[in-house]
């Protein structure tokens, strides 16, 4: 008799614990970071899973941002969509238009997040008409890296990086003429830098306040700001001061800087560890500075690049809430501070900055500080909020094509930009047509 009772009791315990286990909410998270960042993310997810016992997160690396997004769209149609994905900044408008994501704000209980605790430039980018759509996660912008030894050899002050594009030209000339390096400057031939320059001089890329006050209908490629930037890049290339490492070719660009073929490089803040390591490995000192901008416009501060976290709306309310909770965890101070140290992306949470400051991180690592300082200079405006346009990926190709036409002198700057505008406007019009605007 007793034996049976014990057996039944055991059985009850077993069933109860099993059902408790089954009640864990399963969340699937897809991201687009490889290498060191992938390991860092795995660690973040592990911390989340251990921090509570209601939710279990399964993490998966899905290739590039594009791959992740394409996989998500396909998964939604076949009914096995993930709960959270990481996507890049230029897909923001598309993700809003897709209608498969819920604004992050709606997944969280009222007042769960103090948005005042996040870097304003970062929050603004993902806010539309007062609604916070996604969680800033890995944010970056462009800064100047320079080789102090090359500067010295060229007779330049190694503690004074150039601040304007005109200075970059002068410095490059001196570097090349003195034989300190074969070229002055390198950056991947990427529209992102053009976008960064535009934002820094307070210019917008598409009409309707960069698409922030209404649907954009025009690519503003023919404005003077754009022409000035193009003229400068063309001059740098044609006189042999800028070396083109290839379209969106980050690795070649970094290789050229590491091989001391140039005195200066413009690159993402996310490359800070890579750049410092290149200096160590090849025995030269690396300096950093704000991204140099065209003279005569004044500095309006950077817009951000990188990615954010999106919650899909094609799941039960319970799962969506759990996904929201997970996303908030990933943007918390401790996680973001560690993330910054691992990768060079900004800590998007202000408390994370304080944590790092207390540790003395920025004093020991001044190169990391440049990036954060630069972002704090941002003046809130449609230019620094960044462009919101559905066909952003295509616009990037159009801008880079125009630069290449200018390099090969098949078109003048004005002609190339006028043609770019026609192409861009057509792409925007088609997008708006399919969306029914």
């Amino acid at each position: 008799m007793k034996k049976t009772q014990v057996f039944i009791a055991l059985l009850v315990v077993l069933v109860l614990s099993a059902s408790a286990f089954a009640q864990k909410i399963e969340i699937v998270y897809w991201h687009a970071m490889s290498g060191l960042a992938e390991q860092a993310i795995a660690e973040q997810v592990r911390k989340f899973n251990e921090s509570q016992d209601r939710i279990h997160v399964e993490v998966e690396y899905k290739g590039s941002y594009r791959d992740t997004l394409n996989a998500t769209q396909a998964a939604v149609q076949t009914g096995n969509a993930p709960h959270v994905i990481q996507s890049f900044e230029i897909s923001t408008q598309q993700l809003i238009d897709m209608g498969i994501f819920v604004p992050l704000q709606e997944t969280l209980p009222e007042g769960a997040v103090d948005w005042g605790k996040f870097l304003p430039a970062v929050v603004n980018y993902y806010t539309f008409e007062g609604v916070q759509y996604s969680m800033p996660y890995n944010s970056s912008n462009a800064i100047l890296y320079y080789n102090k030894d090359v500067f010295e050899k060229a007779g330049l002050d190694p503690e004074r990086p150039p601040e304007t594009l005109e200075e970059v030209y002068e410095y490059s000339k001196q570097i090349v003429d003195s034989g300190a390096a074969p070229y002055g400057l390198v950056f991947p031939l990427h529209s992102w830098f053009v976008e960064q320059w535009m934002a820094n001089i307070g210019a917008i890329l598409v009409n309707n306040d960069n698409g922030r006050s209404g649907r954009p209908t025009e690519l503003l490629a023919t404005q003077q700001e754009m022409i000035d930037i193009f003229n400068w890049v063309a001059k740098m290339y044609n006189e042999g001061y800028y070396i083109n490492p290839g379209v969106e070719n980050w690795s070649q660009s970094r290789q050229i800087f590491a091989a001391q073929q140039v005195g200066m490089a413009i690159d993402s803040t996310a490359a800070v560890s890579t750049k410092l390591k290149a200096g160590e490995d090849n025995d030269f000192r690396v300096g950093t500075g704000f991204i140099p901008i065209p003279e005569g416009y004044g500095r309006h501060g950077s817009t951000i690049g990188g990615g954010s976290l999106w919650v899909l709306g094609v799941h039960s309310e319970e799962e969506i809430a759990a996904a929201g909770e997970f996303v908030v965890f990933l943007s918390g101070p401790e996680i973001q501070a560690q993330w910054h140290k691992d990768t060079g992306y900004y800590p998007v949470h202000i408390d994370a900055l304080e944590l790092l400051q207390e540790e003395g991180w920025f004093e020991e690592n001044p190169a990391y500080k440049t990036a954060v300082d630069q972002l704090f200079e941002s003046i809130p405006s449609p230019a620094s909020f960044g462009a919101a346009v559905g066909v952003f990926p295509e616009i990037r190709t159009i801008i880079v094509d125009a630069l290449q036409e200018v390099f090969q002198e098949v078109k003048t700057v004005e002609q190339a930009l006028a043609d770019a505008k026609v192409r861009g406007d057509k792409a925007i019009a088609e997008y708006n047509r399919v969306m029914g605007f």
Partner: protein
Amino acid sequence: MGTKFPGKLYPLLLLLPTFVVIGLFIYYPMYQTINMSLYKSLFMGLRQIYVGIENYIELFTSPAYRQSLVRSFSFAGLVVLFSMTISFLMAILANQKVRFARFYRTALIWPYALSPAVAGSIFLFIFNPSVGVLNYLLESTIGIRPDWISNSTLAFAMVVIAAVWKQLGYNIVFFLAALQNVPGDIVEAAHIDGANAFQRYWKVIIPLLSPTGFFLLTMNLIYAFFDTFGLVDVMTRGGPVDATNTLIYNLYRDAFQYSRTGFAAAQSIMLFVIVTVVMIVQLKLGNRTVYYQNE
């Protein structure tokens, strides 16, 4: 002689698996592609509007598409010509009875084992205008440092060279196998009849190799049209200014970068038609010129 199947149902039953596989994996996707090409779409079809044949009209009237067509044909022509000629010559060399012949033969096949992404990256490092090996050699010998990345013609040449190199291994394997199967007595007979080395190849061996050559021609054409977009993506992304934007890369970019699936589907149908026409022409010519021994 022939065996008789009991009833009409039995053979059909045996064929059923084939029909199912073909239907599911070839005809159904084909039908879907045609269907998709009649829409303007966004986000992999999450949003779409029916537009009839507008996508096709756009393709036919687009100067950019016409340029891409011309570019693809010159690309395919160059890749097929060079990869087949060079690999044939190398196969002849590899077929010689020399020391380490087996090692050489294995080494020649290696390029084929690399993925396009890896091959593309390696070639980029070779061609890099400032830190590349090639420009280092060019500068120290003849004093020039061409910009392979920014110049349209040079970038096109660079991708052709990489695509040719990538295909060499595959071609050499087949040519080598074919060369080793050439009956020695025929060659010997030609030798005795006074044919010199060139004549022996031109009049005897090449005709005997023509079935392999024809097979490789087909495979190389398909390779040049369909399988080279990985190289293009890694090396040039279709640039500079569309110089390497072949039909297949343009299609890939519209479908997976710009999420214009409908327009990409129309391009895919066009590509299908183009390659079919090329294949028909090739088969017609092939029947006249290829010599099959056992006929």
